[in-house]
């Protein structure tokens, strides 16, 4: 039998036949590695997760016409929107605003892409239904109160053209009958409008399609958003892009604070874990002082004893690291599902990093007590008791 085989035989015997002791040590390492890899996974995934969460607060970018007196077309919008990578684009809704007369009152009617608005304005609270068929409208709460409208009621919307505008007679005279599909409650200025599909608004006001504003929801970092805005506004799209500062800045602030918090927690937990692993390994080594003394008495060199104990420690660290890396990902997945209601992205680098850190921490935790244990005088350890 070679020395190497005997070395492996001794190490595996120590791990397998001292099961309860080794399980305690393995547990400490695995738990440490689990928490470490879990928290680091969450730390790296927080921006993505929070970005998705923040998109619930509505659009964070708007497009308007580059020249204030000129409308912009669907082509302008689509070209400009193509600058934003499809992965970052959450949703986009064009709006057109026109003043119409309802029950003899001038009211602002907004034409929109209904499906797009559901994505870019997820915080809108609709009592009833979103418009789903022609001639249905979502009436802002204030408008509904003013006109005494509730879900299911019908109203006539009549277009009042601007003085310089030529309008077809029938549109002017007849108006269009609309049904209230739902009442919109946002707590904001949206409650002063009546929303309908772009097609319905066009049928009320007639004339060519045009757009006043596009709301976009883009999931990207502050820097990336700024670069998108600069590219679009600087390009020849006939579109001026702006960030909704209120949303993007608070997003960035909250994200920075949250990441700092997770980082701090990770660091503290890592230190505590290292102390825990170190304490466990120290206990495991210390209770084997007698064995170390015996091995010395049998003629083992200090180097040889360090090699054996480190071999055990590193093997244990490796196994604990592998268990921890896997459990850590599951932990992160669990937390992510519970807190963010979405699955976490697998970070391939965290796996080897966790294993290496486990091995290092366990190695250091073993090395220090082993180094002090080999100072032991074999005669003293073996005598007595």
């Amino acid at each position: 039998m070679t020395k190497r085989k005997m070395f492996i035989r001794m190490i595996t015997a120590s791990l397998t036949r001292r099961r309860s002791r080794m399980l305690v040590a393995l547990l400490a390492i695995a738990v440490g590695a689990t928490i470490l890899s879990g928290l680091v996974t969450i730390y790296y995934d927080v921006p993505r997760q929070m970005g998705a969460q923040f998109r619930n607060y509505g659009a964070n970018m708007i497009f308007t016409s580059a020249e204030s007196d000129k409308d912009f077309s669907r082509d302008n919008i689509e070209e400009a929107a193509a600058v934003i990578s499809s992965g970052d684009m959450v949703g986009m809704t064009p709006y057109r605003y026109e003043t119409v007369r309802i029950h003899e009152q001038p009211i602002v009617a907004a034409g929109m892409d209904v499906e797009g608005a559901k994505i870019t304005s997820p915080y809108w609270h609709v009592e009833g239904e979103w418009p789903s068929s022609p001639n249905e409208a979502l009436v802002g709460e204030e408008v509904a109160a003013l006109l005494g409208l509730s879900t299911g009621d019908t109203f006539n919307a009549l277009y009042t053209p601007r003085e310089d505008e030529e309008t077809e007679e029938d549109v002017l005279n007849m108006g269009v009958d609309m049904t209230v599909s739902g009442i919109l409650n946002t707590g904001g200025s949206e409650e002063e409008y009546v929303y309908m599909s772009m097609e319905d608004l066009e049928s009320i006001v007639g004339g060519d399609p045009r757009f006043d504003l596009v709301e976009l929801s883009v999931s990207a970092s502050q820097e990336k958003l700024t670069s998108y805005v600069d590219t679009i506004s600087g390009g020849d799209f006939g579109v001026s892009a702006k960030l909704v500062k209120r949303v993007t800045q608070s997003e960035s602030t909250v994200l920075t604070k949250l990441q700092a918090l997770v980082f701090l927690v990770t660091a503290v937990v890592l230190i505590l874990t290292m102390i825990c692993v170190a304490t466990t390994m120290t206990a495991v080594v210390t209770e084997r002082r007698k064995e170390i003394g015996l091995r010395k008495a049998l003629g083992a060199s200090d180097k040889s004893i360090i090699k054996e104990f480190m071999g055990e420690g590193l093997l244990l660290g490796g196994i604990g690291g592998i268990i921890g890396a896997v459990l850590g990902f599951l932990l992160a997945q669990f937390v992510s599902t519970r807190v963010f209601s979405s699955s976490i992205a697998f970070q391939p680098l965290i796996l080897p990093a966790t294993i290496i850190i486990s091995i290092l921490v366990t190695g250091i935790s073993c090395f220090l007590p082993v180094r002090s244990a080999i100072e032991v005088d074999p005669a003293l350890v073996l005598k007595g008791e």
Partner: protein
Amino acid sequence: MSLLELKNITKRYGNLKALDNVNLKVEQGEWVAIMGPSGSGKSTLMNIIGCMDKPTEGEVLLDGADIAKVSDKELTAIRRDKIGLVFQQFHLVNYLTALENVMVSQYYHSIPDEEEALMALERVGLKDRAKHLPSQLSGGEQQRVCIARALINHPEIILADEPTGNLDEANENIVLDIFRQLHKEGATLVVVTHDPEVGEIAERLIILEHGVIKSETKSSAADDAVIK
């Protein structure tokens, strides 16, 4: 030239003289017992003979080389190559089998050889217990594994510290029979003991008191015992 020669050995712990100008020679193949009350310096003497400690003054010549002057590292190498230790508490590695415990000694000495280790166990009558862990062995069996481990590297001296101190009479006899056999085969034995019976069967009995050799008696009991 004697195998082991202690010349004017003094060992001090602070102001306390554990050994005071001790002179002792052990010849090749000799069986020497060292007896004495607690605090007489037995353990100190044993540690010095066993290359686990160095004297404050004096020379310790093992095979002609003075081990009082070597470094700790060299002392470890000498212990590994020339001394076989038998302990009162057996001191087996509890997670290794009897066979593996014997092989550990080979591992540090040279190359582990399972066949040879098995033969050493056979010699102490434990071949069929080779795969047992120490916890599965009786005290006497554990001591025999300890002896097999001490023998495996063919040491110059087998140094036993109270080898029968933890054994019942039946096992004590088994162990002493193994010692007689070893002695007959030419092994050099140094046995430190409290037990007069164990002391008296040695060829030479040294009584230590207050760090000095009080008496030295020769007997032929060892050989008689084997003949018996």
